[in-house]
C-alpha cells in the first residue's frame, strides 16, 4: 500500500512516497513520475523519507526513466532514504546511476546545480 503526494516548491516538483512499493503498487509511482515529466517540470525531487520498502518493481520504474530524464535535461534527485531502502539500491549498483542525497536541502542544491 502506497500513497503518493505531489507538491511544488521553488519551481521543483516534489513527489513524496508514503508506504511500501512492490509489484502491486509500482504503477502508482510510474504514473506520478510520468505526470511530473509530462507537465514539463525540469526539476523533480523524490521525497523518500516515508518510503518504508521498495522491491525491484519500484527500482525498475526509476531505471526506466533514466534515459528520458537525461534526454529532456530534467534534474531528478531522490532524498531522505532510510538505510534499509538505500541498501536495496546499493545491492544492484543503482545508487551510482541515480542522484541520491540525504535530505531535501542537499537534493535541491544538486537539482539547481544540474539544471544550470
Amino acid at each position, binding site marked *: 500500500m502506497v500513497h503518493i503526494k505531489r507538491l511544488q516548491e521553488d519551481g521543483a516538483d516534489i513527489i513524496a512516497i508514503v508506504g511500501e512499493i512492490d509489484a502491486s503498487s509500482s504503477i502508482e509511482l510510474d504514473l506520478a513520475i510520468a505526470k511530473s515529466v509530462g507537465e514539463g517540470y525540469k526539476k523533480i525531487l523524490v521525497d523518500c523519507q516515508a518510503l518504508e520498502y521498495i*522491491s525491484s518493481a519500484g527500482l525498475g520504474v526509476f531505471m526506466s526513466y533514466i534515459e528520458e530524464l537525461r534526454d529532456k535535461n530534467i534534474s531528478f534527485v531522490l532524498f531522505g532514504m532510510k538505510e534499509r531502502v538505500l541498501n536495496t539500491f546499493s*545491492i544492484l549498483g543503482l545508487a551510482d546511476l541515480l542522484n541520491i542525497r540525504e535530505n531535501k536541502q542537499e537534493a535541491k542544491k544538486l537539482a539547481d546545480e544540474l539544471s544550470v
Partner: protein
Amino acid sequence: MSYQYNTGCSLNNLKGVREFIRRSLDGQQVSDLELGAIVLALDEMCSNLMIHAHHCNPDHFIALNIHIPVKGQFIFEIIDDGSMFDINQFQEPKLDNLVHEKRKGGLGIRLVKSIMDKIEYVHEGGKNVCRLTKTI
C-alpha cells in the same frame, strides 16, 4: 524451528508475505539490513511466481516454509504446482541494457542471486519446491 504461510497468487498478498517473514525471523538476531534483504529476496521470488506461473490468479495458492535448523542458518521453501519458473535459467540483464531499453523488469533475479547463498529447484510429491538458503 519451522513456520508455514499459505497465500493466494494476488500481488495484493505480497504485503502479508513480507509480514510473515519479518514475524518468523523476529528474535533470530538478524540485523535490520539483513532482514530487509531476506524479505526483499522472498518478495521477488513470490511475485515472480505469482505473475509468471500463476498469472496473478488469487485462486491459485503458494506455500512459503521457513526452516531454521541451527541458529543463523535459514532455509526458505516456496512450494506451488504451477509451471516451474527457474530463475537459474534466466540470464541476469546488464544494468546498461535495462536503462537503454527502458525495461522495468529483470532486476528481481539479480537481487535474489545477490542476497541468497543458494537457489535450487526440486520436484517433490507432484509439487515444485524452490529452496533458497542463507547463512548469516
